């Protein structure tokens, strides 16, 4: 179990609809919190990695602008983009920068101000996150792709719309407790089941909301972490994989192969298995995405994901608590900021500082962050 790189600071802005400020100011909110958490100064930082899906930004090449505003000039800075999994890909790059010895401390700053464009234009951009030659001309969109996976899961395993609704009910219950979430109302099973259709079989409450937000994760070498941090949280394992962007190249519609591969790689590197995970944050941009994550990560056998949620095993008191911060379904999904927000939740859990959502005695946590509809998969395992 390697313990070469640690998280020494985490921060997150509130995820909101229509942030009343610019992208630099949004980024600063997460940065300030993470720097205060790490109790370091900008002189301690060796490099910054800015993570954002640039099609939402009017600012071209935002890394320079953001690094300047954060005070991280003249250190090197660059952007890492993997759509919804940008910030965990940024963390993967930061890990290698630190482990290679190039830098001791690296700031990974994820942000997205989605409200700069209309929801419809946002869908158009997400549609073009598919194969623009052979998929986008049919008017494809993100919920449609996840909906086709829901249909695939239903038809293969007999899972139901109610199983998915139960995932939203759980997420909404925890969202009420999360001051930084965009959606903070409880949702009943009836409300989730009676909500209007989006892309069948997915309905309104099966989908997360667009949001503006920023996250910041500060990583350091183990030596530096011991020097500056009282409570470093180590990266124990990391896995990353890709899958064909055009869904016609996929082997199945009942799961995401990239998530499964990334999970296996992360477990192997960390020397742990699914049974060792105390708390997990998975990429629930849609309810079906969380269901598929249960199975990809081995929390349930393929097809048995519905039993986990029906038996409340992914609640805080269950066998494997998942998304007890409300998940993307409650927090919202500001593309470039999402992975960093998931990491923040796990780091707080492993420090025993997660407040009302604390999983007692959590020692090993997992983050599963997916880019596009299973184009990019990142899984990171953390430990104290």
């Amino acid at each position, binding site marked *: 179990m390697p313990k070469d790189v640690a998280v020494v600071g985490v921060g997150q802005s509130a995820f909101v609809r229509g942030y009343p400020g610019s992208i630099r100011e949004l980024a600063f909110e997460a940065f300030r919190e993470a720097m205060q958490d790490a109790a370091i100064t900008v002189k301690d930082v060796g490099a910054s990695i800015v993570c954002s899906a640039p099609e939402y930004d009017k600012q071209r090449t935002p890394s320079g602008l953001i690094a300047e505003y954060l005070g991280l000039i003249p250190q090197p800075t660059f952007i890492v983009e993997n759509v919804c999994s940008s910030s965990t890909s940024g963390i993967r790059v930061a890990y290698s920068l630190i482990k290679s010895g190039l830098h001791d401390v690296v700031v990974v700053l994820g942000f997205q101000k989605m409200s700069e464009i209309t929801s419809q234009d946002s869908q*158009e951009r997400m549609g073009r996150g598919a194969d623009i030659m052979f998929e986008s001309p049919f008017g494809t*969109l993100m919920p449609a792709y996840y909906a086709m996976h829901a249909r695939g899961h239903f038809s293969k395993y007999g899972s139901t719309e109610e199983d998915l609704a139960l995932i939203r009910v759980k997420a909404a219950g925890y969202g009420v407790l999360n001051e930084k979430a965009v959606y903070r109302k409880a949702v009943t099973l009836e409300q989730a089941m009676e909500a209007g259709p989006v892309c069948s079989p997915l309905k309104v409450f099966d989908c997360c909301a667009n949001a503006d937000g920023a996250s910041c994760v500060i990583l350091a070498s183990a030596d530096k972490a011991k020097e500056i941090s009282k409570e470093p949280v180590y990266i124990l394992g990391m896995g990353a994989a890709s899958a064909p962007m055009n869904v016609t190249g996929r082997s199945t519609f009942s799961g995401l192969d990239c998530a499964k591969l990334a999970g296996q790689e992360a477990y192997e590197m960390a020397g742990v298995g699914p049974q060792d995970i105390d708390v997990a944050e998975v990429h629930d941009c849609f309810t079906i995405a969380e269901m598929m994550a249960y199975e990809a990560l081995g929390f349930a056998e393929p097809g048995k994901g519905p039993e986990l949620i029906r038996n409340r095993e992914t609640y805080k008191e269950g066998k494997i608590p998942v998304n007890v911060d409300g998940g993307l379904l409650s927090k919202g999904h500001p593309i470039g900021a999402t992975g960093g927000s998931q990491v923040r939740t796990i780091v707080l859990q492993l420090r025993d500082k997660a407040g009302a959502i604390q999983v007692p005695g959590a020692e090993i946590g997992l983050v599963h962050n997916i880019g596009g509809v299973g184009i990019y998969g990142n899984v990171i395992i953390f430990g104290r």
Partner: protein
Amino acid sequence: MGFERFGSKSFTSQAKVAEFVDYLDKGELAYTKCRTCSQAYFPPRADCANCLGNDMEWIAFKGNGKIVTFTHTMYAPTGFEADAPYTIVVVELDGLKVLGRMNKEVPVDTLSVGMSVKVEIVKLPDGQVTYEFLPA
């Protein structure tokens, strides 16, 4: 003419596989197959990732396919608003998978995974060309 004629709205103008559009004009949906290693591709490719070759032959799909998965979307991205709602479907055809739309007249509640469908070429009034699926 190039690839910009594919679909009600294309996002690509030039492509080495623009012959795809010529096949649609002839009333056929076609894929490519590598003459060197026999790997078949849909979407069609000009280059073979299996053997690095580029000697491709075009083959028209024949026969009926089966629905792998589908969704009926109430919303559409910018540029497709007038089309909504519509049904997006993935079909297995001659051992390959093809993404497209179902014909708009086909009620979504009559569809199921595994159902037999056939492909039909659609020539749009503005000169664009595409394909759609119908129950077989």
